[in-house]
């Protein structure tokens, strides 16, 4: 794990831990408080009081039922003492049942278990279930011993409510007893979840930081390669983040460096060739005049009678003069190449240049056709808007003229009678202006596309191989680029790219 990666992970861990750890700390207090408010001691006490009240109610009813049974016993005893018989006992019992709500029935039996009197209440019209029990009382009136069974009843719901209140109170008291631990459980569970979140955050952080650092490491490695002189390095750019922007900038920088180096190397090479051409021109040019003069003198000063020899001399003189003329032309071209000045750039419109090229088309056609215009259709066009570039119009025109002349020659050779076409156009994109020259000639084979711009490379017998080298030198001095590929018409297509004014 790199230091950078460790730092990123540390930053992620610190921020996650502080945020979530803080939230646990705050949540702990909040949970305890919430639980304390929710499971309140007062409510618990009230619930217990409720249970006690219901129990007290039942106990009071039970006590009341005992007292009622006593009252019934006394009433029966009084009746038996008063009347000494049981004739009115049933009506007394009826009064007692009506008087005491708890009493549902009374049954009086004698010592032998024979029923003496019995009354019972009509069943409750509401039909509510009742809990009944019997309270027995023994009465002695004189020699008569009676057993009074008083049936007392209370609604069953009283008991059910006691159980319900008891259950609620019990659960509440359990919640209360667990109040500290319940909030602790919440905090623990929350803590565990937070811990898991931290782990996940770390893992995601590790993956993300690994991705970032891997790209940064790749950048560092690529920088080392560039430092060692390898300008072919290109890093992949996929994502859309700052590192990608950095990578893109790095790629752009390497590409610019590569272009600059290529440009410089080419210009250096051209410079060396110019120097060579200048020396060659100088060395060849000097002896040409004496050679020509010597040949002329040889032919003119022979006064012998040998006609055959005279003819040989004349023939040799003609050959020498022709070759000297060829050498002079070659020297002229070498000299012109050697004296090629540096481009003097100034703001101009490419369309003006195109216009001047169009003006020179008839002369080129006539030159290529050997006195009569070559039957080649040349179409020249330009964008309607001005294409502002910094250029040396004369030098650039010379370069484009070279390309145009080559194109016309190639097309003329391929289509000597008619059908040859050459297109010259200027257009612009957002960042660059372009001059395009294309034709429907035989084209140039792909393996020679890079070589055609080398000095002294030519495919024609009478060519010097300097024309396209000059074009490339001029274009490079304009900060541009010249490319060759296949035209849609089948011939060659030369594209000169020049940076627009105001662009990078």
């Amino acid at each position, binding site marked *: 794990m790199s230091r950078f990666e460790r730092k990123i992970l540390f930053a992620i861990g610190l921020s996650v831990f502080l945020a979530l750890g803080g939230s646990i700390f705050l949540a702990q207090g909040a949970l305890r408080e919430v639980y304390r408010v929710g499971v309140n001691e007062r409510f618990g006490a009230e619930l217990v009081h409720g249970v006690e009240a219901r129990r007290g109610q039942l*106990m009071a009813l039970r006590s009341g039922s005992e007292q009622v049974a006593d009252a019934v016993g006394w009433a029966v005893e009084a009746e038996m003492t008063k009347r000494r018989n049981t004739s009115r006992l049933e009506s007394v019992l009826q009064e007692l049942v009506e008087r005491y709500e708890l009493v549902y029935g009374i049954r009086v039996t004698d010592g032998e278990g024979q029923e003496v009197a019995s009354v019972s209440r009509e069943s409750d019209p509401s039909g509510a279930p009742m809990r009944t029990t019997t309270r027995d009382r023994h009465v002695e009136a004189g020699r008569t011993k009676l057993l009074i069974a008083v049936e007392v009843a209370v609604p069953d719901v009283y008991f059910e409510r006691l*159980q319900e209140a008891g259950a609620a109170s019990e659960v509440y008291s359990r919640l209360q007893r667990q109040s500290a631990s319940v909030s602790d459980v919440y905090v623990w569970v929350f803590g565990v979840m937070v811990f898991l979140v931290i782990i996940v955050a770390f893992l995601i952080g590790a993956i993300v930081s690994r991705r970032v650092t891997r790209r940064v490491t790749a950048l560092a490695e690529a920088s080392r390669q560039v430092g060692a002189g390898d300008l072919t390095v290109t890093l992949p750019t996929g994502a859309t983040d700052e590192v990608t922007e950095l990578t893109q900038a790095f790629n752009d920088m390497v590409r610019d460096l590569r272009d600059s180096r290529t440009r410089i190397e080419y210009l250096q090479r051209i410079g060396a060739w110019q120097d060579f051409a200048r020396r060659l021109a100088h060395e060849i040019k000097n002896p040409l005049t004496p050679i020509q003069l010597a040949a002329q003198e040889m032919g003119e000063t022979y006064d012998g009678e040998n006609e055959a020899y005279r003819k040989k001399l004349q023939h040799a003189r003609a050959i020498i003069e022709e070759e000297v003329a060829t050498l002079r032309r070659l020297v002229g071209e070498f000299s012109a190449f050697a004296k090629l000045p540096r481009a003097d750039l100034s703001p101009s419109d490419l369309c003006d240049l195109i216009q001047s090229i169009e003006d020179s088309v008839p002369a080129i056609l006539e030159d290529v056709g050997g006195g009569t215009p070559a039957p080649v259709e040349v179409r020249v066009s330009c964008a309607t808007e001005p294409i502002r570039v910094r250029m040396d119009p004369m030098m650039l025109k010379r370069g484009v003229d070279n390309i145009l002349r080559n194109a016309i020659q190639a097309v003329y050779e391929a289509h000597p009678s008619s059908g040859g076409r050459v297109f010259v156009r200027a257009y612009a994109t957002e960042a660059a202006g372009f001059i395009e020259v294309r034709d429907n000639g035989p084209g140039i084979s792909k393996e020679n596309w890079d070589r055609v711009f080398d000095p002294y490379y030519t495919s024609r017998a009478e060519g010097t191989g300097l024309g396209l080298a000059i074009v490339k030198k001029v274009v490079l001095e304009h900060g541009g680029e010249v490319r060759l590929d296949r035209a849609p018409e089948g011939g060659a297509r030369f594209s000169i790219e020049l940076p627009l004014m105001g662009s990078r």
Partner: protein
Amino acid sequence: MKYWLAALVLLTASAAYAQSQLPPRDVGVTWSRGAPKVSFSAKDLADERVREELSSGLRKRLVVSVGSHLKGSNWRMSMRQFACDVTLDLWDDDYLVRIGNQTERLKSLEQVLNRCLSVEGLFAGEPKNYEPQKGKEMYFVVRAEFNPISKKQCSELIRPTSGNDPVGPITVNIVRRRICRAERTIEFRSEYVRVPE
């Protein structure tokens, strides 16, 4: 995977160790038709507070469970459990004891404790549980609880609030276990006995 297995083995071993460390107590064991019948008393579950609660007039529960284990193992061969719901009837002043679907009335708390916590000749499992373990040493673990809240009742009482937060259901499950556990529990084991050949 091997770490998980190691943890599981460790956990099982520690649980087995913990059970074998329970205090031994006299548990009568007789064998009838290949199954053991156990007799013991867990009346000491009813301390002062438990007795008070049983006489409160509120419904309380006494649960006794008997499990049988092989010596040195936590694996339970059989499990037998019975529960008494005890209510002091405040109207009739006697104890209403409900065991399964049967209800009976007992006059005193002592009778209730004898009925619910003194076990006589209780079958602890079926012959098929012991058939494969013939000749091996085993022991019974008795657990007596006062007033545990049943799982079903507990789930009804304490429910997670509706929503899809992950903390709620987990926490409620843990809290449920704590809140619904018995108010008093005693545990003991029998001496080691051998499954008859």
